[in-house]
């Protein structure tokens, strides 16, 4: 499905499309002029630091909150106007699971399924059991939810989203609180959903995960969209980086500077016992990598390791959203 020319502007229909979507809480714009386009069939990673507006966007897409500006369409129909027609085709996990603590996991699913007037009653039992099995809760389905662990609740939330065959899954941080097996299962689940043609819109800040499962991604920062496209496009927009392992760190920095590169800080490797690592950003128009090695060797730098890394998604993410750890607002 992937491959081919990674040109932007994916043709075909969009599962989610927003134009100038905005949400204000008082004076604060939680989401601002959002133009999002999720192609049908994609596994779409919705990235952003805490408080950047991911959950707020999802609430507007599902018709839970009203947008203060702009429009949104889901599965080709305007939201929230076509809510009744759209939502039965959408499975959702919004900001963590929530259930009736005094009902069992199974009873909770029955209740939520019964809440939708369009859900067929005849197949309810079977569908509930299948969803429970699919998230590995078959054995714990008879337990009261108040006795569930965080990960078990998260799984039950996923099971709720899986109660019916869906055209779109909107998952807000689905692996939150899951153990490594659970995380892997969710990855597999998403892959199998995508294989069946379901569009998956998954918000996360676990980049490694997004890199493994997504075909497309968008990055939010303080309510604004700062990048979106296929994963390839996002990565290649980032800058490559050259790393040199050498005991002659000072000399290496001199050579890099002469070649017109900006050497970064020297980072000791193995607590300074081994060679140090010197890094520098390698712009696309800079000298070819082999010339750098030649220059280093010619200057008498003992090169013990040399690598050129294409920017990882994480580098790109930090580039786009800033280094700071503090929540923006």
């Amino acid at each position: 499905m992937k491959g081919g020319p990674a040109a932007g502007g994916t043709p075909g229909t969009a599962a989610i499309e927003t134009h100038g979507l905005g949400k204000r809480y008082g004076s604060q714009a939680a989401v601002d002029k959002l133009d999002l386009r999720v192609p049908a069939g994609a596994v779409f990673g919705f990235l952003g630091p805490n408080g950047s507006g991911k959950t707020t966007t999802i609430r507007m897409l599902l018709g839970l909150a009203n947008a203060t500006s702009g429009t949104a369409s889901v599965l080709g129909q305007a939201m929230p106007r076509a809510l009744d027609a759209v939502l039965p085709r959408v499975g959702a996990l919004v900001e963590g699971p929530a259930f009736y603590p005094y009902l069992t996991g199974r009873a909770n699913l029955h209740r939520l399924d019964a809440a939708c007037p369009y859900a067929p009653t005849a197949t309810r039992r079977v569908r509930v059991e299948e969803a429970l099995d699919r998230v590995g809760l078959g054995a714990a389905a008879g337990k009261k939810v108040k006795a569930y662990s965080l990960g078990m609740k998260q799984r039950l939330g996923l099971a709720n989203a899986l109660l019916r065959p869906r055209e779109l899954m909107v998952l807000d941080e689905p692996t939150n609180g899951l153990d490594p097996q659970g995380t892997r299962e969710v990855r597999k689940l998403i892959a199998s959903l995508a294989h069946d043609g379901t569009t998956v819109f998954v918000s996360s800040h676990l980049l490694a995960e997004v890199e493994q499962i997504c075909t497309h991604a968008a990055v939010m920062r303080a309510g604004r969209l700062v990048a979106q496209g296929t994963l390839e496009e996002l990565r290649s927009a980032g800058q490559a980086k050259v790393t040199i392992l050498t005991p002659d760190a000072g000399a290496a920095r001199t050579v890099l500077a002469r070649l017109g590169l900006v050497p970064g800080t020297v980072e000791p490797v193995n607590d300074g016992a081994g060679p140090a690592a010197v890094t520098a950003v390698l712009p696309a128009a800079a000298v070819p990598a082999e010339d750098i090695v030649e220059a280093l060797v010619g200057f008498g730098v003992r090169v013990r390791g040399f690598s050129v890394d294409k920017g990882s998604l994480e580098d790109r993410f930090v580039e786009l959203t800033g280094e700071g750890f503090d929540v923006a607002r």
Partner: protein
Amino acid sequence: MLAVLAAVPVLIAVAVRLTNGTRAGHGPVFLDRITGNGLFVVLTSLVLCTPLFLPLTVGVVSGDTIAGEAGQGTLRYLLAAPAGRARLLLVKFAGTAAFTLAAVAAVVLAGTAIGLLLFPVGPVPLLSGDLVDAWTAEGRILLVGAYVVLSLLGLGAIGLFISTLTDVPVGAMAATVVLAIASQVLDALPQLDWLHPWLFSHWWLGFADLLRQPVEWSSFGSNALLQVGYLAVFGALAYGRFTTKDVLS
């Protein structure tokens, strides 16, 4: 809650039976007549429960309807199901009404049972002085029960509306109960005469008129009209509020 309500008539009956000599003129109406006829247990219980116990339970249930789901976070999943906002509101109000019915039924049934058990039953003197047989009397008691259920529907609608205003169920419950009490306090102030017919609690104890021969229907009618009015106004307010509200819990 239903068990507590059912305990009220039992408590009354047992207390009266044990002391067995209530002086007339003390305590609520009908209390002194219980020893003579078991059917008065129900009426005494309803008189005692209508101002406080019943509104309390109705306030708790109606205040919890939407705010409880919101506070727990389940509201967003119900709406994403999609349950439909108007439909959810309707189901929640039906639930409140069903609870009100069950609450009053608990008092009536427990009262009838314990009355038959502990006291003699025979022809019952009505307020108009006529004597009717026990079956007719029980029919009148059911009519009184229906009257009390009807009386509390307005309060249920008020609670439903308040419940759409907040994500904190305890707040909605408390506000509803406080309103029920405030309305009765206002009803007791003669200076506010003009306001009285508009208070939802105004006809709450008007069921005595159903115990006349022939039945005096006017208070039943006024009460029904008032309650339907409250139902319409607060139902519309709840609808307006809930269908446009941002669900952020």
